[in-house]
């Protein structure tokens, strides 16, 4: 999942965009058509006006009356009229003109339709020549009239669109949200479950499009759970199959040791007693290795339910466990444990981690040495020994399975630290190894301590 994108915004875009384009096209086409029709209607009107004026002029000439068209009667005026004008010539003499054509001066438009800008306004002209009587009629009209009409028509179209477009986008947004709800719910469901929750995703009423996906996912979950279960069973089986012969060897050896001991007391043979003790040690080593292997396998297969647990008590318990071994090697344990520190963890596995680390510290510290164990209020646990320590290369290597850094012949499975490491990972903490002056190894873990108020509440 390198790049993600939002289905919702894509859907909204792809639904809204065509609507917007369609609206814009409608407006544009309406504009073109409206403009064309308006031009034609107004031009026809110009021609019509010219014809009326021609008739009137003919009439006036025949009557030979004083030429007065009476077109300037203020009572009969319309506001558009100021934008209409006419001029009439007979035999090239101007005989009449409307007042608003005064600006035209001696400009004369060519016959037929033409456009001309005079002063601030743009005008449309129509000139009609009657060669028989020598009459020339010029009708003119300001373009503003046409513009106004077009603008009004367009407003009637655009204003509702301005209201509709946001409405459509909002409705689409809500609709898409509703439609995508099952997908969102499912992803939240999958996101919120813990890493080992393999229960199937609930799917009552799933959309057809994602149903196959959910079913495939559920099938995968089922297969995974099945394989986890089988692995657990395998571990159980392996435990049984490995432990029973080991138990037989161990018990048999111990019975023989007892018998040899009894014979020794009664003056019987004793040379085999030492061999039997060696055998018992080897069996114990094999047993320890099997135990550690099974433990690692089990920890990795079983979920570790985490709860609020007393870290301080856990550390103290682990110290008690090694006290006897330490005393046996005359190792001085210096402890400084801050009491009442709680963490969110799995107590059994944390106990195993502490046992392994403390056990290592005691194991590798020579007779008469010391092991410092401190747990500070901020959750820093430090175990420092006076053993041989580790070089930098080994500090990385020791966490691998079956790697044992020491060549001193200490017995061990080589699994202890990888188990500790695994538990640490499961708790999101790091095991840091560093040198302990003047000699020895210092193991540090920084735990996330639960706040004190929280610990009082429970």
């Amino acid at each position, binding site marked *: 999942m390198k790049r993600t994108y939002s289905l919702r915004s894509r859907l909204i875009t792809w639904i809204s965009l065509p609507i917007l384009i369609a609206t814009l096209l409608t407006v544009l086409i309406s504009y073109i058509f409206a403009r064309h029709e308006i031009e034609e209607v107004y031009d026809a009107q110009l021609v019509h006006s010219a014809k009326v004026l021609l008739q009137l002029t003919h009439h006036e000439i025949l009557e030979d009356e004083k030429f007065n068209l009476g077109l300037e009667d203020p009572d009969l005026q319309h506001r558009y009229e100021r934008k209409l004008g006419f001029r009439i010539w007979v035999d090239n003499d101007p005989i009449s003109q409307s007042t608003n054509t005064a600006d035209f001066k001696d400009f004369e438009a060519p016959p037929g339709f033409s456009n001309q800008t005079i002063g601030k306004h743009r005008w449309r002209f129509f000139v009609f020549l009657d060669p028989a009587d020598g009459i020339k009629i010029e009708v003119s009209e300001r373009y503003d009239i046409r513009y106004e009409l077009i603008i009004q028509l367009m407003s009637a179209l655009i204003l509702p669109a301005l209201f509709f477009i946001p409405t459509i986008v909002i409705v689409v947004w809500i609709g898409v949200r509703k439609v995508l709800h099952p997908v969102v719910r499912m992803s939240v469901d999958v996101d919120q479950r813990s890493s080992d929750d393999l229960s199937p995703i609930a799917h009552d009423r799933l959309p057809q499009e994602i149903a196959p996906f959910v079913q495939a996912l559920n099938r995968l979950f089922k297969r995974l759970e099945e394989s986890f279960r089988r692995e657990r069973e395998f571990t159980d089986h392996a435990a049984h199959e490995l432990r029973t012969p080991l138990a*037989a060897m161990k018990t*048999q050896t111990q019975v023989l040791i007892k018998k040899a001991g009894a014979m020794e007391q009664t003056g019987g043979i004793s040379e085999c007693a030492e061999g039997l003790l060696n055998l018992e040690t080897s069996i114990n080593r094999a047993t320890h290795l099997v135990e550690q292997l099974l433990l690692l396998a089990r920890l990795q297969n079983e979920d570790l339910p985490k709860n609020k647990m007393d870290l301080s008590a856990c550390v103290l318990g682990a110290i008690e466990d090694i006290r006897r071994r330490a005393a046996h090697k005359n190792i001085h344990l210096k402890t400084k444990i801050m009491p009442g520190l709680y963490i969110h963890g799995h107590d059994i596995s944390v106990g195993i981690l502490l046992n392994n680390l403390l056990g290592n510290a005691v194991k590798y510290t020579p007779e008469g040495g010391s092991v410092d164990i401190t747990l500070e209020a901020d959750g820093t646990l430090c175990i420092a020994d006076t053993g041989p320590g580790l070089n930098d290369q080994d500090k990385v290597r020791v966490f691998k399975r079956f790697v044992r850094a020491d060549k001193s012949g200490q017995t061990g499975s080589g699994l202890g630290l990888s188990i500790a490491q695994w538990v640490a990972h499961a708790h999101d903490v790091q095991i840091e190894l560093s040198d302990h002056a003047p000699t020895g190894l210092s193991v540090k873990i920084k735990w996330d301590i639960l706040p004190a108020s929280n610990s009082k509440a429970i």
Partner: protein
Amino acid sequence: MRILLVEDDKNLGQATADGLRGLYATDWVRSAEEAQDALATTSYALLVLDINLPGISGLELLQDLRHKKNQIPTLFLTARDAVRHRIEGLNTGADDYLVKPFDLDELLARCAALIRRSGGQALPVITHKNIAYEPASRHLEKSGKSVRLSSREAAVFDCLIRNIDRPVSKEKIMESVYDWSSEDIESNTIEVHIAALRRKLGRDLIKTIRNVGYIIPK
């Protein structure tokens, strides 16, 4: 003091039986079915039971026993150390458990503790007059001095001291001293052991009740 061991693994069963025989008469069977027959005919002080058996499992056997109100103290052996397995065993009615591979001494100590508890005797040492007796180890002291007994003698003494002030029949002593593996059972052997005990511990300790058996009076 007779123990029934149920363990299907031949080597482990043999070794464990050998280990137990140092202290107890031990019958060893290899299936739950055989165990049921043995339990029906002999009275045992303790049942040491492997959980994973062919056929009827150890848990089913235990369930059946408890169902029949059989209160025999039971220690189960399991190769599975997951907490749920141990809980399952204890909930079925077992009194204790050990995870294989176990330490022989630990097994003996746990057996001794269970037997002691079931006899209502919580103290690990039984004292009578000038004799101190530790059943778990069969260690015996007379006036502070340790007395060595053979395992048969110890078994006879164990049986009598547990039934202190109660007469014990010769047959009952035989049953708790000899298991099926014993080859040296003769009708007068008990008398031989009693004689040895009287020699080592004092003539008045064990009294003979003619036609009934023997008694250690209070």
